[in-house]
């Protein structure tokens, strides 16, 4: 508890608060611009944090994460274009409501829901993380392996669109994680005598390539496209207590769904929003109203996508397993700052573990304030011509990637994965499973092989570990889930078809 308050009071100083505010505002702006995502921003900011104190770096990045997911609702509401993939579901009801002459109200509902969603998942983050970290100390290689396996299986069954394409994407990601040093014996493999591959393909060049470069290529193709102006007034933006009470149950439910989806390794905010939206619609007495500017639709989508952030941080700080693509970058940030992510983070670096938790809470408050009072101005950034933005981002991509390891090889890797990412998306293969396969398969491999070394190669040893057996059972159930889902999926597909798929990234 003392550590917790120490982290909080540490945050209330000029420099950390400034960083947090900068992070949140940059995040909102980037989140609001279609084509630029929170993932991109955080990946590009990471090299700039090398010389910051680790806690400050985390503060800045968490701020960007919160801002980036929240900012997406602005364009989703005003232009029917999701600023980030996380706000696809917000377009369904946010845009119609705005067009009915209530843009202020539509934004206000979205912003307030985002804020409440953040608070709900913060409660889970703060309440669950410390005991979970204690529990995870007892986890051995079998537990970790089966947990990652569970995540991979769930990812395949929960991914949007075609399951076979999701699987292809995931397997490709796993394949690209193979070359380099064998994680358990320290021997080189699949390097073909090419020494630059000795370290394998690093996470960040691959991520920046797959998410930023591919997006730049895509945007460059449609560079002349300009959004139509929409006049925005702030009328109705302040949402009263009565409204919060009216939507209370929905918020609570969507917040819990969002946190739970976030908690599952590898699945991000967009799936959280979709699950919550569908659930709310299925439970509603008037489902036909969804898609026409119905407030509960906005509430569930925005509560869920923001609450997934807090949920996704739970496995990150307690076990060192990323809950989403952004968390995979945050994991990279911890490693760069020489912090060992995992259950010991609370013991060895409580200031960092609690730094995550306290920054997340304060970032939500800053986001709420900024969005309420500056949303009209932020909305204008989406009219900046893309040609300026894209060239600047490309320069940052190259500098940022080179700075990671002072190797130009990484820049080539980044460019190559930009093309690969663009190609995959062109073939409608989602990128999310690709990245998750890339991030999770080395973790799974390392733990599986450690487990087998401990058990002298005996696979059946897994049945001596009850927790691991539970994870295996959940994995098996998840495989059956898609069959059960088939019925719901048909309805979802119809809803998806209604949205213009401008931002197709599978994950934020």
């Amino acid at each position, binding site marked *: 508890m003392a550590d917790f308050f120490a982290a909080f009071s540490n945050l209330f100083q000029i420099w950390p608060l400034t960083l947090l505010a900068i992070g949140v505002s940059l995040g909102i702006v980037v989140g609001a611009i279609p084509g630029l995502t929170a993932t991109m921003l955080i990946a590009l900011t990471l090299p700039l944090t090398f010389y910051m104190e680790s806690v400050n770096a985390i503060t800045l990045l968490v701020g960007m994460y919160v801002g980036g997911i929240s900012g997406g609702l602005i364009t989703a509401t005003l232009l029917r274009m999701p600023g980030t993939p996380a706000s696809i579901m917000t377009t369904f009801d946010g845009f119609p409501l705005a067009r009915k002459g209530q843009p202020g109200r539509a934004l206000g509902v979205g912003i307030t829901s985002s804020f409440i969603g953040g608070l709900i998942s913060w409660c889970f983050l703060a309440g669950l993380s410390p005991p979970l970290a204690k529990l995870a100390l007892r986890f051995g290689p079998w537990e970790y392996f089966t947990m990652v396996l569970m995540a991979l299986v769930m990812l395949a069954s929960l991914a949007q669109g075609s399951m076979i394409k999701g699987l292809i994407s995931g397997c490709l990601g796993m394949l690209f994680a193979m070359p380099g040093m064998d994680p358990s014996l320290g021997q080189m493999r699949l390097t073909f005598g090419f020494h630059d591959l000795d370290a394998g393909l*690093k996470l960040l060049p691959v991520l920046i390539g797959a998410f930023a470069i591919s997006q730049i290529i895509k945007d460059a193709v449609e560079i002349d496209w300009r959004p139509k102006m929409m006049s925005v007034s702030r009328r109705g933006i302040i949402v009263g207590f009565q409204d919060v009470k009216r939507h209370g149950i929905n918020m609570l439910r969507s917040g819990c769904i969002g946190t739970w989806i976030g908690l599952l390794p590898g699945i991000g905010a967009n799936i959280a929003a979709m699950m919550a939206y569908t659930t709310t619609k299925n439970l509603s007495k008037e489902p036909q109203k969804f898609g026409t500017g119905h407030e509960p639709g906005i509430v569930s989508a925005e509560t869920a996508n923001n609450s997934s952030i807090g949920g996704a941080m739970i496995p990150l700080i307690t076990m060192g397993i990323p809950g989403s693509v952004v968390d995979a970058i945050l994991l990279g940030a911890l490693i760069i700052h020489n912090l060992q992510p995992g259950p010991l983070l609370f013991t060895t670096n409580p200031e960092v573990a609690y730094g995550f938790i306290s920054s997340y809470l304060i970032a939500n408050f800053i986001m709420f304030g900024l969005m309420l009072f500056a949303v009209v101005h932020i909305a204008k950034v989406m009219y900046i011509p893309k040609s300026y933005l894209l060239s600047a981002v490309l320069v940052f991509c190259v500098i940022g990637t080179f700075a990671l390891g002072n190797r130009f090889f990484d820049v080539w890797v980044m460019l190559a994965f930009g093309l690969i990412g663009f190609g995959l998306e062109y073939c409608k293969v989602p990128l999310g499973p690709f990245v998750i396969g890339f991030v999770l398969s080395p973790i799974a491999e390392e733990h599986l092989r450690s487990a087998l070394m401990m058990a*002298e190669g005996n696979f059946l040893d897994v049945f001596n570990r009850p927790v691991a057996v539970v994870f295996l059972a959940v994995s098996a159930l998840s495989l059956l889930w898609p069959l059960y889902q088939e019925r719901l999926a048909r309805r979802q597909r119809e809803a998806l078809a209604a949205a213009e798929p401008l931002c197709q990234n599978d994950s934020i």
Partner: protein
Amino acid sequence: MKHRLVTTLAAAAAAMLMATPVLAAWPEKPVKVIVPFKPGGSSDQTARTFQKAITDNNLMPQKLTIVNVGGHYTIGSRQALEAKPDGYTFLLIHKALMGAQGGGMIDFGYADFEPVAETSEFCLLSCVRENDERFTDVKSLLKMATDKPDSLIFGANLGALNHMAGIQLQNTTPGAKFRFVQIGGGTANFTALIGNQTDTTVLSMAEYLNFKVKGVKGLCYMFPTRAPEAPEVPTCKEAGLGDLVYCVGSWWLAPKGTPKEAVDGLADVLEKAMETEYVQTMLKKKAMAPTFTRGEAFAKKLDATYKIVEPTAKQASKK
């Protein structure tokens, strides 16, 4: 004819003029040190400690710049190997280079560099859980590893420093055999040890000091004398394991063919930096031994170390 002779002489003189002053005035431009590890790691911290001491005390007329080369340490080492030996590129590395060499991971080795100096070293301790009643001292640990070979789980990063230390530990007792399992570095090993996943491991002195209050017991210290920070842990020699010493020094190397002036020049600068209060305080803070060797003595130490590392590394890579 005469004309030609004059030209030749002039050219020779010019060549000499061009060649000598470059070296006499070392360093004429910033000196680059490649650290083949990520920023913030222990080698990087050592490099930056020296950099600060050199700058703050004006020990060198030019700047010392540190370039962290990411990825596996063999990548940065290879960059240094292939760098122009002009006296402006150096490498900061440690024993791991020999491990990779002995294990056949790389086709070059320490002998392909000019030795500059060794500044400070950290040494490892054999550790078990504090509440593990089975082991009262290191002898009892090795006895069990002999009585039930291949059953005690030793957490290590296979093929890396802690694995080789474990092999050297078991080699002190004929017939002793640990079961080495891939766990990772110090923090991961501590977690696995405390979580009952493993039975034993080795930790650096700094890691031990950090973890001892949290349930780790040091059995013996792989250094000739007890550490002032942890006088409760006997040396491995006192514990009856002969001359078992396992330390990891910070080695400054230069590409083969680097002029002697530059090699000696950097060694001089490092030796002076070593004496500064800043470096001494930092070393104490990180529980590192303030070792300093250079020149012939350092070259001999490298050869002697490789004699021990090579067979161990081969043993480690065989698995």
